[in-house]
């Protein structure tokens, strides 16, 4: 078996290597099915240790650099976020929250690197109507394939984290790719590579969980008793995970959802509504066919015409 494309090493290969992540590694493909893959890649994950983040935005710069995007230059409105939200040209965003800890009275600056969480159960993929516009690889990466995207915005409705953005330029959806193109050749994501404090690390999900455990232990020993790993089970776990010093209240990190899951409304729309819809339309058509077979056409008779002629003659 070929080695799984992944890296957690500080010195990944520098020689050109062929891409080792492709169609054959798909486990899910939107609005279509894929044959079960012959190999199972080792699940990867990006671990974002919020407690180590200094808010320098090197990750954003690296993301822009690697993906060759050009986020618009905006106006300073007195917030640290720059740009002010995720955009089709900004796949990751440092979100800054000032939080007063009621227990200690300390003002804590909570900086969270927002972006696609690469859910194991991706709501975007579930909602997507375009065959092959959203795919999931066996290593856990969820990717948008722009040539298949129709720009409908259903992924936005499916996503529990409010991540995808539709470009007004090419009318397709954009989000973090987890640098699938870099991972395919044994490199880590650009943001992880650029992070000066190693707040962002990348490797196998197993390794990242171990790393998180050591970090959580350290945080707990320093008084953050609720420190923990954010790997929400409601979406089957994620391939982007956070170490949070206050894992009991993720909402304080600029609205990180406490128990994210694909909305039941989306599940109803993509599940039962389809069956009801086809059944109803089928029944309506069948009712017509059956009625026609049982009663035959409703024809106007010669007698009807004569009655009408008599009526008109009588009245005029």
């Amino acid at each position, binding site marked *: 078996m070929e080695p799984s494309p992944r890296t957690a090493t500080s010195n990944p290969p520098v020689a050109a290597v062929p891409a080792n992540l492709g169609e054959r590694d798909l486990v899910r493909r939107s609005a279509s099915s894929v044959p079960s893959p012959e190999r199972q890649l080792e699940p990867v994950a990006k671990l974002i240790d919020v407690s180590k983040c200094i808010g320098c935005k090197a990750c954003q710069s690296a993301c822009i650099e690697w993906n060759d995007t050009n986020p618009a230059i905006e106006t300073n409105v007195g917030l640290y976020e720059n740009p002010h939200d995720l955009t089709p040209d900004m796949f990751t965003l440092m979100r800054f929250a000032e939080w007063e800890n009621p227990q200690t009275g300390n003002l804590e600056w909570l900086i969270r690197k927002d972006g696609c969480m690469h859910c194991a159960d991706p709501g975007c993929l579930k909602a997507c*109507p375009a065959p092959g516009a959203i795919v999931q690889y066996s290593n856990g990466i969820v990717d948008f394939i722009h040539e298949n995207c129709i720009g409908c915005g259903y992924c936005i409705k499916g996503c529990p984290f409010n991540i995808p953005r539709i470009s007004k330029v090419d009318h397709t959806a954009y989000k973090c790719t987890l640098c699938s193109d870099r991972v395919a050749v044994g490199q880590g994501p650009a943001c992880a590579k650029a992070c000066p404090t190693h707040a962002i690390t990348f490797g196998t999900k197993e390794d990242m969980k171990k790393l998180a455990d050591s970090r959580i232990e350290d945080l707990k020993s320093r008084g953050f008793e609720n420190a923990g790993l954010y790997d929400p089970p409601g979406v089957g776990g994620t391939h982007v995970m956070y170490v949070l010093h206050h894992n009991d209240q993720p909402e304080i990190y600029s609205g990180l959802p406490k128990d994210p899951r694909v909305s039941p409304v989306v599940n109803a729309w993509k599940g039962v509504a389809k069956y009801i819809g086809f059944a109803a339309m089928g029944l309506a058509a069948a009712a017509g066919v059956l009625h026609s077979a049982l009663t035959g056409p409703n024809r106007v008779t010669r007698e009807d015409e004569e009655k009408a002629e008599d009526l008109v003659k009588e009245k005029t």
Partner: protein
Amino acid sequence: MATTSIEKEDAIHPGKPVVVDRYNLAARINHWITALSLILLALSGLAFFHPSLFFLTGLFGGGQEARAFHPWIGVLLFFSFTGLFIRFWRANLPEKADRQWLAHAGDMIKGDEEKVPEVGRYNPIQKVNFWLMSLLIVALIITGIAIWDQYFYDWTTIPQKRVAVLLHSLAAVALICIWILHVYAAIWARGTLRAMTRGSVTGGWAWRHHRLWLKELADRHRTKKPAAPAE
């Protein structure tokens, strides 16, 4: 007395057979624009509704094109249907007599139309069809705008968009079902289609299906000279 039952354009042409004008040219054009846009909306909408129907986007030039055209066709349908609504809402107001007719709706469906009370320009099933279509089209345009991200993204929150897209699909399914029954009924009652093509029906058709309407027209002497025979 159902004075609302007749429209301005309705008129009897005496002769053999009697011919009765039912829809003028403007009403027919209005109807067919609505019909065409509804069909295009159903085709493009169903493509987004289920993957097995995604190929229908090919009719519009591809997924991107179907996605872009669909809401605009919806706007066309909304205004076109509004035209039909303004034309026909009075004639579709419920009347007391509709109750008795509905008690005999079973006979109508069984094809025993002789047992069914006389009725005006529209029978109660047609009226229900009219009001349901009106209601569903309003629901579709409202929920449609809520999910028309290209222009109205900021008007709604994401949870609202989720509800809107679910309601939009359910309303569309209901409208397609009603549309199927509407088309079926127009074919089943032979001689109906010409009302929306040539604009007129035969006297016998009016006598059989909408006798009060015919009687009212006759009572009011709403007659026109028969068209001069071709020489």
